């Protein structure tokens, strides 16, 4: 079996668990809804929506992303299945790729619920360039899941993992959030600035590529059990 197929099997396993229990998806979608609701109370003026909505979207992605990561890896801890997964006769790379892919799908799914909610409740013009927006959100979800999977996996046995995961992730992911927010801001501006959106989207793409390669290398050295 090739590496990608093995990774695919592991990703599919994670997604199937999630589709059966719907624990992360249901709670995260609800949490994202609550976040949008809080934003609508804390930014009550319709005239600032264009300026504020990129930030709201990426704050939602950041918060739901880290909580989902923590919960998804907790699942492996509860029955000590992470050890089984690492002992199974597949390369560590496949384990990492599978985990990161499944996480990307989850984070993306929650973000794709947040976008229409923000557009509906805050009357934000998010659907004007929906294709480009979905692309940048996908890249963001991949980036969060890549770096996040490395550290969530290493934090598995640490008692204060819930607080340490954002402590580690957010400073490292700031370029990702800035690129995402800049792209979104360029897309929802009164006169959309597509050049700026392309620049920041490609910045995010390069960021993802570099950190994916680095994560592939580092995962084996960090996760030893």
């Amino acid at each position: 079996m090739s590496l990608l197929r093995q990774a695919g099997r592991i990703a599919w396993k994670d997604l199937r668990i999630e589709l059966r229990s719907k624990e992360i998806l249901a709670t995260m979608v609800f949490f994202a809804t609550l976040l949008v609701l809080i934003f609508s109370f804390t930014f009550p003026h319709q005239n600032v929506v264009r300026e504020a909505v990129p930030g709201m979207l990426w704050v939602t992605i950041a918060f739901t992303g880290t909580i989902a990561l923590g919960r998804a890896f907790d699942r492996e801890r509860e029955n000590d299945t992470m050890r089984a997964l690492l002992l199974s006769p597949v390369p560590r790379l496949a384990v990492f790729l599978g985990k990161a892919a499944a996480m990307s799908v989850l984070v993306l799914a929650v973000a794709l619920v947040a976008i229409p909610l923000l557009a509906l409740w805050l009357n934000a013009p998010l659907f004007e360039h929906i294709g480009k927006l979905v692309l940048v959100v996908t890249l963001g979800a991949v980036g969060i899941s890549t770096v996040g999977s490395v550290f969530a996996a290493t934090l598995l046995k640490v008692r204060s993992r819930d607080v340490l995961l954002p402590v580690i992730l957010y400073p490292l992911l700031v370029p990702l959030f800035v690129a995402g927010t800049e792209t979104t801001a360029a897309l929802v501006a009164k006169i959309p600035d597509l050049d700026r959106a392309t620049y920041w989207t490609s910045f995010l793409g390069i960021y993802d590529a570099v950190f994916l390669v680095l994560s592939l290398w580092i995962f084996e050295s960090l996760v030893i059990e």
Partner: protein
Amino acid sequence: MTKYLVPVLCVVAAVCFLASLHLVFTVAPLEFSYTADGRLNGSSLFFGQKIFYWHVANAFWLFGAVFAAGISSIVFLVTRNARWDDIASGSVDVAILFGAMVLATGSVWAKVAWDTWWNWEPRLTMSLLLWLVLVGYALVRKFAGPSADRIAAGMAIFGMVGVPFIYVMVGEDSHPKAGSEGVVATLGAGMRGAFWLSVLAFLLWFIALTITRVQSTRAEREVRELRERGLDLGVLK
């Protein structure tokens, strides 16, 4: 030799620092310039420019420490030799101190130059982000238990690789430029000596602090390992 290294470094650093103080305040000229039509340039800083000699010197070694920590973390992960982890951990501790100095002096500079303590000016933001990565590293080391060394090493490496991204992200700015046309390369004659002497003083100070910190980190680790061995053998309770 190593017994005297740190005290000697400290003394030399102190002498350099005092000499640089002398140069900065009595020899180096005040910073001002004229516009093309002969009037005083509005961006002249006069005495306020003096903070530059410490701000930039600290910033140099903040970045130096980030890369020292990142590279020794890579070597640690490859070789699994805990001595390299001590170096990474020690230099991060020192870098947190230097980073705090950079942020504080940068704030003073911002107040003089732009009349605000903090303006999310890109280079200032970049230093803050790096500093936050380092503080995160220290938190991980303290609270992540037995696997803290690996997790922290990963964080140092990711942080180091992120530096170019932060650099591109912050982009063009109002901060005095670095590089061949930057303030450092185009310093006036009287300022150059004071500046490089200050950089040297802080380099020696940085090395002395890092050596001390690395030694104490290593001693802590060795005591911990000895204790664990003692517990395993049943000598200790």
